[in-house]
């Protein structure tokens, strides 16, 4: 198993400014480094995730793959303190955002979550708001004032690949969108607050191939200024979009652990663990 740490920093590719088709995003917000140290998570008495050590360098895209129920979502929710909102949930270990422990006493979850955004497995736009209001909702909810609202709405919906479809319906309720459109709206909403880290839990599981492609382009594009962690069941997507891949696996009755973590190309071509290879090639129970 590759220990995440110093050697990873060496293999870190240069932040990919090359593939932006000249549309270089303003480096106004610098991406943050995220590091999980000895993370354990429980629901009630049962240990769900154990001994996770992952370092996600600034501006990288990390894919989390693994069979259903092995604790990927749970781990992701530990990274922005959403785990603790579930009654009975407990955790141990540290999560460092730019070296600062987000679980340190006195640290404010709301402020931290403004920097660590999240896109959920199921689309959850705000039903009482219009499409446009949904995009701006993060800013309003965090009490941030924006100058040019129309510009924010257009650029974020554009990044999520939804602008052309909804540009004439911005005043319609978000509930009037299709499931896939709602998911892209949620992605636009998360991007609107300019997070430094974006956690995405199977963001494309409800999307068609062309929207998926658009989201993947967006991920590549924002990864100059945002550190992305994406859970996916789509191996091609993981290999296309990510710089690093972590393979989670939970044996029967055991908590989920990281079996393999390293640069995506190596994980996919020459994995250290035979189970990784089996999983990637679909030879798995």
């Amino acid at each position, binding site marked *: 198993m590759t220990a995440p740490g110093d050697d990873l920093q060496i293999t870190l590719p240069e932040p990919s400014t090359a593939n932006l088709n000249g549309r270089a995003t303003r480096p106004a917000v610098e991406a943050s480094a995220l590091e999980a140290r000895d993370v354990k998570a429980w629901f009630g008495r049962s240990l769900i995730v154990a001994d996770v050590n992952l370092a996600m360098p600034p501006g990288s895209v990390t894919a989390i793959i693994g069979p259903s129920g092995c604790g990927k979502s749970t781990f992701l929710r530990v990274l922005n303190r959403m785990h603790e909102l579930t009654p009975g*949930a407990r955790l141990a270990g540290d999560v460092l955002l730019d070296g600062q422990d987000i679980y340190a006493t006195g640290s404010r979850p709301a402020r931290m*979550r403004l920097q660590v955004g999240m896109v959920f497995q199921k689309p959850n736009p705000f039903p009482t708001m219009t499409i446009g209001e949904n995009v701006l909702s993060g800013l309003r909810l*965090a009490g941030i004032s924006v100058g040019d609202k129309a510009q924010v709405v257009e650029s974020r919906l554009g990044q999520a690949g939804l602008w052309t479809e909804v540009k004439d319906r911005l005043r319609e309720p978000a509930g009037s969108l299709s499931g896939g459109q709602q998911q892209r709206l949620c992605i636009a909403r998360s991007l609107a607050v300019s997070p430094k880290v974006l956690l995405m839990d199977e963001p494309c599981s409800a999307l068609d191939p062309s929207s998926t492609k658009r989201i993947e382009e967006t991920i590549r594009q924002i990864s100059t200024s945002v550190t992305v962690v994406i859970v996916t069941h789509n191996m091609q997507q993981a290999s296309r979009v990510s710089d690093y891949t972590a393979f989670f696996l939970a044996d029967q009755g055991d908590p989920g652990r990281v079996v393999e973590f390293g640069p995506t190309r190596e994980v996919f071509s020459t994995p250290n663990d035979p189970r990784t290879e089996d999983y990637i090639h679909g030879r798995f129970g």
Partner: protein
Amino acid sequence: MTAVPVLVPPLPTRPSAEPRRLRPGPEALVRPTVIFAAAAAVTGLAFLATALSGTFGYVVCTYFVFVALFAWDTVRREGRTAGWDRVVTVAVATCGLCTIVPLAIIVLYVVTKGIGGLSGNFFKQSMASVGPLDPSSQGGAYHAIIGTVEQVGLAAMIATPLGLLTAVYLSEAEGMARPGKKPRLSRTVRLLVDAMSGIPSIVAGLFIYTMFVIKLHQGYSGLAAALALSVLMLPTVARTGEEVMRIVPGGLREASLALGAPLWRTVLRVLMPAARSGLVTAVVLGVARIAGETAPLLMTALGSDAVNKNPFHGVQSALPLFAFQRMRNAAPSEISRGWAGALVLIALVLTLFTLARVLGSHKRKGA
């Protein structure tokens, strides 16, 4: 070469050629009606031929004979499943009717009894300087209408914010507690609110009487009545509101929190708007609970025959008190005034409900 007719798309037919599919229309009611007539006839014959008698018994027997005949007919024509479907449909419709009919009877009864007492002076005059033997063309419930509007309005103003805050607290206590700690206080609060909703209204009146009217030397007033009423309204608003807040999808709460919103903004901007129509219902139920209360008013507003527009000082009447006091007199004009008061009270509550419904569903965005 084999023909592949199945792969050839059917020729497009003109839209008008295809009969539109409609839900069963009025003609579907013909058969049940015939069967009902048959059931009525059969039961009638049975009543004539045997010792059975009585209108009520006849109606009930007809009903059961009808259900049996209808089920048998449907089973014969459409099979068992359809038969059961019809029986359950009839049963459910009967239940619905059984709830509506008494309500309609009550309202109709009050309307027929009260409409005679309603005249222009009823809304303009008080009962000051009107004797029990004066005709209905004199005196009115103006003072009582003012009292009810002020007392219920004040009570709603007190209990609505408190009740909604309690509702939010009860539904969100887990999110407010420090991670890993059980929200003990919320359980105590919920228990107390539940106990509070069991308080007999006369006790609420007594409580305000001893604490506010006597101990604090405030004397009788509309405000005292409003306080007693708010004690009764608070638990209804709080518990109904809590249930409503709880059915807001958890995904919305998480979405908002994950965007970096503090909990209070999440509640105010996301959860409460999502639960809006339900919260309005909670308040409406609360008002419904108190609008017709008489007992707590007896010791707080006391009742009066004169107009008192100031709810903060002096005795005041209210529509339930008005109806109660008028009905205790034997004079026909007084009785008719009492019914008219009851009618106005019902109308007032109904107007309020309609208003709240309109406000609650107003500007609803999306599903």
